[in-house]
């Protein structure tokens, strides 16, 4: 990014996304300052994953205005590339390549020094298994490799879909400096902006500066956590 870092990382105004006639997201409006954390809550099928994919520039919004890191989507989606780290259900890793081969591949795509991948793997305690095909690693190990992949290019914005799924407490602790609250960028050191999708509301709300509650694609909550009570959140999952 240039020196004119936008103070607002996300600016959504009546964002809408349809799949044909089915509405997946409707009327989502919020504004998130750079460096803060947005928790996205909602039951299965509420539109959480769709929202993440829209913010990543992978799905084009059908209505409203969407600004991510100052880029207006979908028009400026190409200039958003390389600034976002997406950690979703799909790990975006090739099962038949080893962890370090996968990271080298992504490093080349992003024009990053390949050594950075090795360094991240070492931090995740994966150095000994780095050359085995991913297929032979446990689900938790693969998730750690995906975390490395997600922060490999030092993105400003992290889009995290259940990032701690399959991680034991030790592993969760290891990934925290990379994607946890206050995770800082290498370049500049300012904290990363995070969008955290979770089924488990309590820990997500605890980290959040802003909570977005989705129900059947509509934003029913968009407020700072201290303005919410537990019932309101529990209602989302009913």
């Amino acid at each position: 990014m240039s020196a004119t870092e936008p103070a607002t990382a996300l600016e959504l105004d009546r964002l809408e996304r349809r799949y044909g006639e089915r509405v997946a997201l409707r009327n989502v409006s919020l504004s998130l300052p750079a460096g803060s954390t947005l928790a996205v809550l909602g039951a299965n099928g509420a539109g959480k994953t769709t929202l993440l994919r829209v913010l990543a520039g992978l799905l084009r919004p059908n209505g409203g205005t969407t600004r991510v890191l100052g880029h207006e989507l979908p028009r400026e989606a190409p200039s958003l590339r390389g600034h976002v780290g997406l950690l979703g259900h799909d790990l975006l890793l090739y099962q038949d390549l080893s962890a370090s081969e996968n990271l080298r591949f992504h490093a080349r795509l992003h024009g990053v020094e390949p050594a950075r991948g090795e360094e991240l793997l070492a931090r995740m305690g994966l150095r000994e298994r780095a050359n085995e095909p991913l297929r032979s690693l446990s689900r938790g190990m693969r998730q750690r490799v995906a975390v490395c992949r997600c922060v490999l290019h030092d993105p400003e914005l992290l889009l995290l879909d259940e990032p701690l799924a399959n991680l034991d407490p030790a592993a969760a602790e290891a990934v925290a400096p990379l994607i946890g609250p206050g995770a800082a960028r290498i370049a500049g050191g300012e904290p990363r902006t995070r969008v955290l999708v979770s089924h488990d509301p309590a820990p997500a709300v605890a980290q959040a500066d802003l909570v977005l509650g989705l129900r059947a694609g509509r934003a029913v909550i968009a407020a700072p956590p201290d303005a919410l009570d537990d019932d309101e959140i529990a209602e989302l999952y009913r």
Partner: protein
Amino acid sequence: MSAVGALLRKDLRLELRTRESVPAMTLFSLSAFVVFHFGLQRSSLDGDLAAGVLWVTLLLAALLGVGRLFVTEREEGGFDAIRLAPVDPSAMLVAKALTLLSFLAIVQLVAVPGFGILLLGPSLLPALPGLLAVLALADVGIAVIGTLASALAVQTRARELIVALMGLPLLVPVVLAAARATAPLFSAGGASPPPLRWLGLLGLYDLVFALVAYAVFDYLLDD
């Protein structure tokens, strides 16, 4: 360009590790020659018939590889990965076409000599320089069309079927031109050079579809 390199290297490494396409394509070619031997009840072929058998076999073998070309990307997130990275998504088109081209080259490295030994009447050696030119031009066309067909079909439910249904008619002109160009090379009276007209048609076909593919490919990745 470095993205093309990264993708190509990744594809070749994956193939080296999983051996999903090339061995199957090669084996298919050799089996097809055996089937042709019995089906045609001929032990040696020359001229048009030899050219036809060779090109039909190579085309069908190519379609086997085409069907699988984008499967890993779809299943393991390569489409998303390329769209998250600061590179031109067309890099994937170029890389996949080059991957397919190299698969075809490897398959033909075995299949063409195999054809020379199993079925071809006249000697393969004098035909070789001309045949290499025809192979190169036709392979580019197959690679480009195959990449497009594969990318179109990979998001559909009946992937393999769609690839075959779409790929065969689209590649008829390639087979037609390649077989016509190859026939004089295999003539019983000694190889004569391939007619320029057919090489020109192959070249035109390659050029037109390379441009069309480049123009439309981004729309296939977009979501």
